[in-house]
């Protein structure tokens, strides 16, 4: 009886925990589909988190806060874009540097904001539906950002697979030389994709600091940017699978918290490891299917492009 009552909150918390991952992973998925590997997701999330938080505290408007977070994430990613696309810096090294840069920059910006509480977003309440047992709160009692993240999944899918712009973006990621020969602006398309990825990572970070936790602490993303990167591979570059992956990871995160709460005699460090262990395991399982990776992975992922070469 008691166990059943727990399932509702666990489910609800799972969707919330999955939301920052989903934002960041969808953004990175579009970036990678265009052939760019941006390992700086963690850094962009942190910058988004602190900027969103700071702006919300200053203005009192969460909408302004989220807009600022998206803008800050995109601005951070533009640094990466300029370095890798136009100055032809190595994408892996630049991405790693971007993460380190984001950790430091966010800590600097956030100095005056540590310990300030924030209210978080209002939760939806639909009389009747939200009160449904087990699934009511999970499906009808979330805040707007959770729904936005889920709504972004079909939108990204439709964009990639049903619009001409999406087709061009996939073509650029598949074979940038051929796309260039057909007259597509490879660098411009990639630049826009990287900006989108940055904005989405910024939103994901802001969801953490403005809503999920809600407060600012240094390094508060605690590796979620890396998980988002892994999710993209896990999803074999498909938006719907990225959502399932985010839910799985969110679910394991929440579950291990509850297991700790129940006082089961397992070292808590081991339990905290679980979500990451699950990610590694799933990645290993996915990587065994070489064919699927080869068919979905953008063939030009991480390769530098120079129009005159």
């Amino acid at each position: 009886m008691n166990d059943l009552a727990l399932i509702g909150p666990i489910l609800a918390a799972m969707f919330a925990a999955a939301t920052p991952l989903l934002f960041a992973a969808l953004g990175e998925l579009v970036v990678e589909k265009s052939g760019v590997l941006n390992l700086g997701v963690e850094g962009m999330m942190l910058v988004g988190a602190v900027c969103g938080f700071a702006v919300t505290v200053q203005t009192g408007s969460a909408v302004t806060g989220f807009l600022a977070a998206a803008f800050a994430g995109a601005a951070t990613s533009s640094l990466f874009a300029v370095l890798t696309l136009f100055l032809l810096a190595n994408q892996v090294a630049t991405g790693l540097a971007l993460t380190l840069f984001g950790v430091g920059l966010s800590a600097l910006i956030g100095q005056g904001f540590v310990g300030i509480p924030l209210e978080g977003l209002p939760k939806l309440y639909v009389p009747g539906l939200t009160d449904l047992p087990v699934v009511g709160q999970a499906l009808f009692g979330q805040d707007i950002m959770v729904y936005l993240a889920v709504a972004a999944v079909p939108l990204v899918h439709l964009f990639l697979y049903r619009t001409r712009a999406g087709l061009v973006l996939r073509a650029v990621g598949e074979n940038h030389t051929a796309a260039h020969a057909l007259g597509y602006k490879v660098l411009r398309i990639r630049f826009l994709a990287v900006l989108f990825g940055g904005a989405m990572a910024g939103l994901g970070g802001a969801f953490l600091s403005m809503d999920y936790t809600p407060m600012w602490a240094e390094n508060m993303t605690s590796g979620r940017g890396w998980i988002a990167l892994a999710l993209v591979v896990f999803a074999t570059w498909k938006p719907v699978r990225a959502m399932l992956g985010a839910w799985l990871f969110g679910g394991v995160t929440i579950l291990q918290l509850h297991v700790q709460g129940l006082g089961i005699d397992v070292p808590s460090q081991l339990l905290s490891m679980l979500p990451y262990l699950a990610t590694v395991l799933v990645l290993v399982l996915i990587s065994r299917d070489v064919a699927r990776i080869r068919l979905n992975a953008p063939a030009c992922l991480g390769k530098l492009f120079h129009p005159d070469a």
Partner: protein
Amino acid sequence: MPSHAETFPPVALPPRLELRGITKRFPGCLANDHVDLVLQPGEIHALLGENGAGKSTLVKMIYGVLHPDSGTMLWQGAETTVPDPAGARRLGIGMVFQHFSLFDTLTVTENIALGLDNAGPMDQLAGRIREVSERYGLALDPGRHVFHLSVGERQRVEIVRCLLQDPKLLIMDEPTSVLTPQEAAKLFETLRVLAAEGCTILYISHKLEEIRALCSRATVLRAGKVVGATDPRQETARSLAEMMMGAELSTPERPPQGAAGAARLTVRHLSTTSDNPFATNLKDVNFEVRAGEILGIAGVAGNGQAELMAALSGEALLADTGAVVIEGRSAGHLGPRARRALGLAFVPEERLGRGAVPELSLSENALLSGYARKPLVRGGMVHFARARAYAETIIRGFNVVAHGHRAEARSLSGGNLQKFIIGREILQKPKLLVVGQPTWGVDAGAAAAIHKALIDLARSGAAVLVISQDLDELFVLSDRISVLFHGRLSDSRPTHETTVERIGLLMGGLFGTPPDEDGEITRAV
């Protein structure tokens, strides 16, 4: 300044395209030097020249990928500039690239949509693709993914993409280098229909027989300059080649083969399985190569050549150690170095990246495979003076045009690098040499030199295996020819007992059903 003052009679149609004094300079080289070219409506016009003569640069400028430094372009009599490929397509210029500009994981329809500026909804486009492909005899299934398609089918995708825009000028860059003779014959029919409908075709190829059969005019480029214009039907392949080279062409002769020696390479029941969905698995491949002979393996790219090459060189290790026997020793489990020690040398198809390290100098590249059989390393230390001397020997012996042994491999033209790599292997006096695509993208002069070197090696007692898509080459080189199709290898036939038609049919997969002797199949050229 040549005079362009002549005016056309008012009734005559202006040329479809006229280039006047087009010049393009790259750092360190003048790629096009005041090139003039006139293309009339409905003609099939050949653009000839050796590698590096400036053909690609010129057509890229016509298609708007590059921009001329100076010179004017007249489209149907009106001066114009082509800012980008989309601008070229708006004028009515279509181009089929030598290296296809296709996207493997997208469908045929998606690929074609990418090359159209007004693609419209996908299902309607699929209908238009079916229509055009039927009208011109270019069978295509719009829903298939490109990686499933054969090379010939991929080219059809490119052509249909151009045709959907009702082109007035179609540029074809080396279109038949990857086709079987029968596929090429079908392509020529399509091109002739197009030309009859008034479309101008600018045709780039190094297969001179083809040009003589197909084209009514030819413009010859050498070192960026127009050196001649001619009617190729009045020329011989030899005279065209000499026009391109500006020198006399010496074709190698294959002296009759002596008695075949002992088997140097024996392949028995070689089968492979791969995780890679783009790979072709080999299925029960059997053959042997004897001392003193050249065995040619024909086949359209993607039929297992890369896999066979990897299995022979040791890049892919085999579970069945007896599947590859070199000099009587089972070698299936041995890596490349161990196989080299048994007397194998190999020249992979991919020159930059497999055959040579692009960023290393020629002497370092000479060292990389040469140290096994030449005293270039002593006690783990490189003997640089000897490596340099070895590189210089190769450069002199094989007429490699390069800035000495210090030149980076990637700075050489394809033909010169290939001469260097083949020289590096031959000078090690291998007992067995395996070569993939020895003259792919290599001009006539260098190709003749490479062919001569391979024949000389075989006649000096080595066994030589040549895997190539170029049938003319295999007929020049080989004592026996086999065909690789979908991972299976046909029995070999002595070259003098078979014909291009028969091998062409085998390349299309007709194993075991020999055609009539007089052949109902029309020759490609």
